[in-house]
């Protein structure tokens, strides 16, 4: 085992370009499968949990008692639906919007450590592009979905879509700044902008070290993902389906999929930044000890997802002007307070 790692390391240092090409291709194939299947089961989890939270069964026929294959059935339905493009739409932009959304998701997936392997007392993060600035990069790439949403909304030539697109952008820009400041605060404490290192360096989870930043980041994350109480860009009762109103069949399915992909990736990001990443006691069973960080990571991510879905059934939707006000007038000053706190506490610990 050690020999293999040695060999890989030496190859990587000699031929970095080829090494990263191979890693990239393998990673892209594996991750696109993982992320897409992951998104399917995030959807399943959401449907099932929302059922529980409202005294309903949720999916319970297709794929056994838990309806595990319901989402596959839904996907098959989407594939067999007619693909119709509205006559008045701006066709190239309309067609490219779901593709851009998918590209944005994959860009995030490339830089996020999905977990780590524990081996010989060392953690090996499972990440394709282990960049020095991956925290900054991921935060930037997460907001790319909004660009896709804007493309979708503006090209549809539909009033609901138009409002949805503008709302989506407004929502994003109000929370981008506080979110960025939160990431900076974390980076200050971790002395690094690399996500794997941030996760690794958390002796005390940053959720406890900077609770204010944790709260702000959750709010900003929910906003970025466009979930209740911040789902104004597709508020069904106001603007039907927001920017996806004119999308149907597989095109709509793709956009929906990317949203849930991003939800998964966002939860992973939250776990990495604030919940200690894959940190957790190593299970002292020979086979399991290697993947025990992965197990911890998985459990934390599921808990975060559960929390996001719980929020959806518990809260009401805010009005869009209240959302932007909250972002600019409350969260931005608070995030700066948090930054100061991080500097003070960070200096103290250092």
């Amino acid at each position, binding site marked *: 085992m050690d020999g293999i790692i040695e060999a890989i390391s030496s190859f990587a240092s000699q031929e970095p370009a080829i090494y990263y090409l191979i890693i990239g291709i393998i990673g892209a194939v594996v991750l696109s499968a993982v992320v897409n299947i992951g998104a399917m089961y995030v959807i399943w989890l959401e449907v099932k949990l929302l*059922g*529980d*939270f*409202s*005294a*309903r*069964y949720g999916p*319970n026929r297709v794929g056994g008692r838990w309806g595990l294959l319901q989402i596959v059935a839904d996907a098959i339905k989407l594939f067999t639906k007619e693909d119709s493009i509205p006559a008045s739409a701006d066709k190239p932009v309309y067609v490219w919007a779901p593709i851009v959304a998918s590209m944005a998701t994959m860009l995030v997936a490339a830089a996020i450590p999905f977990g780590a392997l524990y081996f010989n007392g060392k953690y090996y993060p499972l990440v394709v592009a282990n960049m020095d600035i991956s925290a900054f990069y991921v935060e930037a790439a997460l907001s790319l979905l909004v660009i896709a949403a804007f493309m979708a909304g503006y090209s549809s030539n539909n009033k609901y879509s138009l409002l949805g697109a503008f709302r989506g952008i407004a929502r994003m820009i109000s929370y981008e700044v506080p979110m960025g400041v939160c990431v900076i605060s974390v980076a200050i404490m971790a002395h690094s902008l690399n996500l794997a290192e941030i996760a690794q360096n958390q002796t005390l989870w940053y959720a406890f070290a900077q609770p204010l930043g944790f709260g702000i980041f959750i709010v900003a994350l929910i906003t970025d993902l466009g979930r209740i109480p911040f789902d104004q860009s597709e508020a069904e009762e106001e603007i039907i389906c927001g920017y996806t109103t004119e999308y149907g069949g597989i095109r709509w399915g793709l956009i929906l999929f990317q949203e849930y992909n991003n939800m998964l990736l966002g939860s992973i990001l939250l776990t990495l930044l604030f919940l200690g990443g894959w940190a957790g006691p190593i299970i002292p069973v020979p086979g399991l000890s290697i993947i025990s960080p992965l197990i911890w990571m998985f459990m934390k991510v599921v808990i975060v997802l559960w929390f996001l879905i*719980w*929020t959806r*059934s*518990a*809260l009401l939707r805010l009005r869009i002007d209240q959302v932007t006000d909250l972002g600019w007038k409350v969260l931005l000053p608070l995030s700066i307070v948090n930054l100061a706190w991080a500097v003070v506490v960070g200096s103290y610990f250092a």
Partner: protein
Amino acid sequence: MLKRKMLKNWGWPLRIASRGTEVTRLYPEVMMELPAAERGIHELDATTCIGCASCARICPNSCIEMVTYKYGSPLKNKKMQYPQIDYGRCMFCGLCVDECPAECLKMGKKVTMAGWEREDIVRGPDKLAVKKFTAKEAAELAAEAKRIAAEKAAAAAAKKKAAAKEGAPAEGAAKKVAKEGAENKPPKKAVAKEGENKEANAQEPKKEDAKPTEGGAS
């Protein structure tokens, strides 16, 4: 403070999740419990129906049509007809039940009536009747009717003899009686299906006993 205030909101979904499923019913497997007063699909007592068409007249949507039905009481009016209800239009207002002078039309607890064809939801007396004459009783009643008709014919014949002077009109009357006696048989189509119907008739009550859940009564 904002956080503390919101706690109740977060608590609601958890409380619901802890209560078990109440909103969804697993429909075909688990049927709803219906009260005794439920206004479901009609039940007709074919043995007491007098074929007065009160129900058809009161129906606001005119979904009740009177049709001839073989197992009706042959003792009564020979042009005996029974209600046939088009459930595509029925709105279950229950006015027909209230109007029925013989109290032979009731509304039961069965509420499922899906069908593949439009004709499937038009239910004739054959399907509506929960109580009807068995083939044997019907045969006996038919024999009774024949006997009465024969008696009447005999009486008429006697009358005719007695009043031989006014022969022509009386003869007409007797002919009429005889003709009506013949009409008393079910129409041709029904005759053709008689065999099937008898079988169905024999099986049907058993079927309903075996499957009480069908109408959601259990």
